[in-house]
């Protein structure tokens, strides 16, 4: 075998703390290495051309590039060696940047380490085999999980791309958080007026199958061929019959039900349609509050329903769907404001969240768009907004910025002035973060045109005094204490990962960070992909995002799905397990442990043997570690390859 080793300086990224030239020179001593060079940027066009030229000039059979992490540029260099006529698997990378040059300053130790890492890459390459992908069929339907604005956008774009979409929404209506907003920044246009038509499009699109009040129960399979089980909760109403006329709501005697859509500002009826523009516009019975379901009598709704749609003994059901790709768009939930005991959230009725305030501002909200404070229904004249409640605060384990609160607070201050012209608003803030198109101008308007008083500082406590709330805080610009006598306090509660997000991530086999937000494949270059092929992200499930960013990501995820579906066949990753029939004793241990059901038992001349289903195998290698006689070997990570790496490091 003839191996070429290319050591990258990566400018000064590697060259600064690793003597790349010496690594190249030392690599000449490794077995089978016939050519080495050091190059400034191996991934650049001249760098790649240099590799191709060297392969041709020296008739190389394999290439080692010592540079950055293979998680970054392995695909790049695989294509490079392929362009030079080699099989793309006759290539190995040594990670001498992330694992060497960036984590230590001792040039001698680093150089030595880089030489050794190059050495193990050479040893692995010497045992590499050319691998060839297999093609398999693809199911061109997509599952979108979450019917907020990001999920809606992804679903509509995929459907407009002529692909069938299965949209699953946990609540009884799509719309998500955006449906609860009154107006949107920085244009102050009506939220439901811009979202409503999109929701109707979802309902009417022939390519979209919507399951509301449903959650993903189980996901099996792999890219191109996912099998999904969806648990559809019981609304106790036959939605095929329900016309959404709302007669039942008018007559329902149980009027103390939790009003989830209105963020529990007030209560609602046990049978309920969350809001007039709901999609699907269908009634749902809350079994916790329904008199018939809790006490056995009542049933007024059933009597009054013109289409006889009420079904008190309805059960939840499990639906199976086959799809080829999945978009997760599960959004966010709000930080629990009661964790700040000193602010009285959850304890003082007139300390509310920003989203609750949206419902008070909304014409379709519980107060019909008249701002009335929850405790006594009086119109507040002095309103204090507190920013960063559950954002940028290590003490509550929320060190990150929720991103959109500065903007919606400015919007709410403006709207407050519109609703109550003789009111005055105060905003306690840490920094104003408004880096969007027309965003900073918008916050300026809140201050300059609408006279909102911005106080830079944290609020230390909020306590009731008479029917007022005393808000005590610091003004760090003035260096003084401030006390404001408020009628209503609105806390800009931070965004958190949606309830159940980590559990969904586990089902999707994608990573999530310690706060429950899903991990993208690369923070800059692959922002909507995940490390699981065929699973994409849209909206706030990946991290807090405002509406434009969520919509953009929804479209981006849809573009990724459509690109995937543009192919008629998918190619598998050929780094899969293969069985050496001679060595297999048919014990079936590999069959038992395989997480994908990718190994089956076959009969070979009367003897049981294992066989890998090549398009199902995902290449984890659990079988290889399980087989006692090593009869099943994971290509590209064979026992001998790993043993050779160990030997290269240890038999010194």
């Amino acid at each position: 075998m003839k191996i070429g080793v290319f050591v990258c300086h990566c400018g000064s990224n590697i060259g600064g703390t690793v003597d790349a030239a010496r690594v190249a020179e030392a690599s000449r001593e490794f077995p089978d290495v016939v050519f080495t060079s050091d190059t400034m940027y191996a991934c650049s066009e001249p760098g790649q051309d240099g590799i191709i030229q060297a392969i041709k000039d020296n008739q190389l059979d394999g290439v080692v590039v010592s540079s950055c992490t293979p998680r970054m540029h392995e695909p790049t260099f695989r294509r490079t060696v392929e362009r030079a006529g080699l099989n793309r698997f006759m290539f190995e990378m040594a990670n001498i940047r992330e694992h060497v040059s960036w984590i230590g300053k001792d040039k001698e130790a680093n150089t030595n380490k880089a030489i050794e890492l190059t050495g193990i890459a050479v040893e692995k390459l010497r045992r590499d085999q050319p691998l060839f992908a297999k093609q398999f069929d693809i199911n061109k339907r997509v599952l979108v999980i979450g019917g907020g604005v990001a999920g809606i956008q992804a679903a509509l774009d995929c459907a407009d791309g002529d692909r069938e979409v299965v949209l699953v929404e946990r609540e009884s209506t799509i719309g998500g958080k955006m449906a609860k907003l009154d107006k949107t920044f920085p244009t102050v246009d009506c939220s439901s007026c811009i979202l409503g038509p999109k929701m109707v499009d979802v309902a009417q699109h022939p390519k979209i199958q919507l399951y509301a009040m449903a959650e993903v129960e189980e996901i099996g399979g792999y890219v191109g061929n996912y099998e999904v089980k969806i648990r559809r909760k019981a609304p106790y109403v036959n939605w095929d019959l329900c016309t959404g006329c709302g007669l039942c709501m008018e007559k329902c005697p149980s009027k103390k039900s939790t009003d989830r859509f209105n963020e529990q500002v007030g209560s609602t009826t046990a049978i309920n349609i969350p809001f007039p523009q709901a999609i699907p516009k269908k009634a749902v019975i809350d079994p916790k509050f329904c008199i018939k379901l809790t006490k056995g009598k009542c049933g007024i709704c059933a009597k009054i329903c013109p289409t006889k749609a009420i079904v008190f003994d309805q059960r939840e059901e499990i639906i199976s769907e086959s799809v080829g790709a999945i978009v997760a768009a599960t959004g966010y939930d709000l930080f629990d404001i009661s964790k700040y005991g000193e602010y009285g959230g959850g304890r003082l009725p007139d300390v509310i969240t920003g989203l609750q305030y949206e419902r008070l501002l909304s014409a379709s909200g519980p107060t019909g768009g008249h701002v009335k404070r929850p405790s006594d229904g009086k119109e507040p004249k002095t309103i204090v907004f507190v920013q960063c409640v559950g954002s940028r605060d290590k003490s509550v384990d929320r060190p990150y910025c929720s991103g959109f609160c500065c903007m919606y607070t400015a919007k709410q201050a403006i709207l407050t002035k519109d609703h109550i012209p003789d009111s005055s608003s105060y905003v306690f803030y840490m920094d104003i973060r408004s880096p969007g198109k027309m965003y900073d101008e918008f916050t300026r308007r809140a201050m300059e045109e609408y006279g909102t008083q911005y106080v830079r500082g944290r609020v230390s406590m909020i306590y009731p005094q008479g029917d007022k709330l005393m808000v005590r805080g610091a003004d760090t610009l003035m260096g003084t204490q401030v006390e404001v006598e408020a009628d209503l306090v609105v806390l800009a509660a931070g965004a958190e990962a949606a309830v159940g997000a980590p559990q969904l991530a586990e089902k999707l086999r994608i990573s999530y960070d310690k706060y429950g937000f899903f991990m993208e494949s690369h923070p800059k270059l692959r922002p909507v992909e995940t490390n699981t092929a065929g699973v994409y992200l849209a909206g706030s499930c990946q991290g807090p995002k405002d509406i434009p960013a969520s919509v953009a990501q929804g479209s981006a995820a849809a573009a990724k799905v459509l690109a995937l579906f543009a192919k008629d066949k998918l190619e598998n990753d050929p780094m899969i397990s293969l069985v050496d029939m001679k060595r297999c004793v048919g014990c079936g241990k590999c069959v038992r442990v395989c997480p994908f059901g990718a190994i089956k038992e076959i009969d070979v001349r009367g003897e049981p043997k294992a066989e890998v289903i090549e398009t199902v195998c995902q290449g984890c290698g659990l079988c290889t570690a399980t087989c006692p006689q090593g009869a099943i070997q994971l290509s590209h990570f064979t026992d001998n390859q790993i043993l050779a790496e160990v030997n290269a490091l240890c038999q010194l």
Partner: protein
Amino acid sequence: MPALAGKELRIVGFLCNWCSYGGADTAGVGRFSQPTDLRIIRVPCSGRINPLFVAKTLLSGADGVLVSGCHPRDCHYAEGNFYARRRLEVFKRFLPTMGIDPDRFEYTWVSASEGQRWQKVVTTFTEQIHKLGPAPRFGFAHEQNPATAAAC
């Protein structure tokens, strides 16, 4: 390939590609400085790590072996680390009878986002191995014959 005599000990890491290798990358991107002893071997999944690789590495003269995978429940391949956890635990418990200090082998879970955690794991483990010093050897490890090396 001489180990840096007196300065470094031989520490080998087996890391799963999706979480811990990514976590080590994240640590690199964040420039979280670490001791230089560790040599990382990348494998797709902690489930790929046969404890016998650890045995082979220790018997071949490594002073310490570190295995790291995705956190339980967070395996890219759904279940690999659950099996790895059982196998590696049993192997770690087996080491005392072999006459090898069980502290020479650790297994842990580091996700791709946990760069700082990776820095801590590497630093702590390297310190632990330096405290134990060089591992006992079997002696007469004769010069490696290039002919047999080519065949293996």
